[in-house]
């Protein structure tokens, strides 16, 4: 009897792995609806599908409310997911605080060390968490600025001092600029309606205006475009969507590709049994260059042919 039972169990086990495959549960927490964040969310799912992984994708969105954000964590625990994908800093922090027995893969977090998610970028100190940083490579941004505005002495930056992403970006920009003997002039805002004023305040104080991956400024980038066109001041940004909206150029993270790469990390945990604690934080090294020739003309800049040739997308 025992033998028959054992045999049945064995057959069942083999059958379940051979024919059915495991159906995984992947729970996602996203802080707000936003094109970049949505692209990452879709990228993760698309990569998992490409790999033929069978999974249910439970997506939660906190509508930019921190209280909902924490409540979503309880919802996720209830779903008993195999992996949690946390998009952007606040969601990742709430998950890291509450969930210790399941792998968490964050993505779109600019500075995971300062956010307290990992001890350092090499490993998460044996914890159940790893992921991807969307830190803007400021050296590449500054190099692009120097290519387009060769005799740049001062870079003006507009940012929201209340955005966790923007503060480390500014610090990195200053470090990079200092190496090259370039000054940085700051204009801070606290909401989108301040962008116009902030851009105006930089006129005459800088040779080029730079806007990083700052959600508040980017949401009102048209105001900065207008000021720059009126004063023939070049505007260079760090996200490709703003190029279509009137900025001259951006060398930027492609958030969809970032989602795909995050999907790879999730797949390694699900299928290969990788431990998040052993996985270093990953970056996206494959950056996209977009340029806008019309904007360049309006802002009194001639784009070097080398830049135009490198661009993935040229808006004429």
């Amino acid at each position: 009897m025992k033998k028959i039972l054992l045999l049945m169990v064995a057959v069942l086990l083999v059958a379940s792995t051979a024919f059915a495959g495991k159906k995984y549960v992947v729970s996602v927490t996203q802080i707000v609806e936003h094109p970049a964040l949505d692209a990452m969310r879709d990228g993760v799912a698309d990569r998992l599908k490409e790999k033929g992984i069978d999974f249910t994708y439970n997506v939660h969105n906190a509508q930019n409310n921190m209280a909902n954000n924490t409540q979503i964590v309880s919802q996720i625990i209830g779903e008993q997911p195999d992996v949690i994908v946390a998009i952007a800093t606040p969601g990742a922090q709430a998950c890291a605080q509450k969930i210790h027995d399941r792998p968490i893969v964050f993505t779109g977090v600019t500075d995971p060390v300062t956010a307290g998610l990992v001890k350092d970028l090499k490993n998460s100190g044996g914890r159940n968490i790893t992921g991807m940083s969307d830190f803007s490579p400021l050296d590449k941004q500054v190099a692009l600025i120097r290519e387009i505005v060769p005799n740049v002495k001062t870079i003006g930056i507009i940012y929201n001092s209340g955005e966790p992403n923007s503060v480390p970006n500014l610090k990195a920009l200053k470090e990079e600029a200092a190496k090259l003997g370039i000054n940085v002039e700051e204009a801070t805002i606290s909401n989108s309606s301040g962008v116009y004023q902030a851009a105006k305040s930089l006129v005459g104080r800088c040779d080029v205006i730079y806007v990083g991956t700052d959600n508040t400024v980017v949401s009102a980038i048209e105001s900065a475009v207008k000021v720059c066109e009126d004063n023939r001041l070049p505007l260079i940004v760090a996200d490709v969507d703003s190029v279509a909206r009137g900025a001259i150029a951006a060398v930027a993270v492609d958030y969809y590709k970032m989602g795909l790469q995050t999907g790879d990390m999730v797949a390694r945990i699900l299928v290969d049994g990788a431990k998040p604690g052993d996985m270093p934080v990953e970056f996206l090294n494959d950056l996209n260059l977009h340029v806008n020739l019309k904007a360049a003309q309006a802002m009194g800049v001639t784009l070097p042919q080398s830049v135009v040739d490198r661009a993935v997308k040229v808006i004429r």
Partner: protein
Amino acid sequence: MTLYAFFGAIEQGFAYGLMVIGVYLTFRVLDFPDLTVDGSLPLGAAVSAVAITSGYSPLLSIFMAAGAGFLAGMVTGVLNTKFKILHLLASILTMIALYSINLRIMGRPNMALLGQDTVVDWFNGFTGMLPQHSTPLLFGLICFAVVFVLIWFLHTELGLAFLATGDNAQMITSQGVNTDNIIIFGVGLSNALVAASGALVAQNQGAADVNMGVGSIVAGLASVIIGETVFGDKTITRALIAALLGSVLYRIAIGLALGLKLGSFAITPSDLNLITAILVVFALVMPKMKRQFLAGRSK
């Protein structure tokens, strides 16, 4: 709604419970619509986070947060009573000022508490229960303790003057009480509770964030109204407990909205704000419907 989500909703309800009681004190007792809340909640979180990361005990940090909240509330009170600025505007001014102050306090927009000891960790370690059970228990105990202290306070002479100020300022002035001072103290007390709530929330979610106050006042008012509708407000004791339980009901409603699936009709995550608004409208209309229903039956 899973059991985890249910306990999570209770936990959030109590974490924001002190804030709701604070909102109740200003909005209903003092008749002072106070938007300082959206700034004093992250203020409490910021003070608590900075205190904890500089080595103070997490428990002490809650009292420091409450102190900071009290000062913030006093500023609103002084702007209103001494400088004769409309209460709504006075509180909005304090709220926007607090945004910059909170950034100053933390020195950055988001301060992580991950890996730091918090009161939540202490209590979880102390009870040995599962965190999803012990955390709501801890916050519930704190809230009820504060409610009982408030009930005692509101029956003292000062407390009675406080209750009367919102009801009939003229009467209380004729009794020789300075209503200005009562309002300054009252708004301060309310924001002390709100900031203490912010400290609890930060310790619970692992970070203080300068944007975490957005929408607090809406949640606070909704909770007060839901509480009144469901549990009644005949006596002050009942009203305070109703406000606290209203906070829990509000979060349970949000929890239901977060996990809502109606057959083939798919609610997407982006519908959450709409559902929240519908829930609040429903709570607002309920008392009227209840009255009409009762009136219809008695005929």
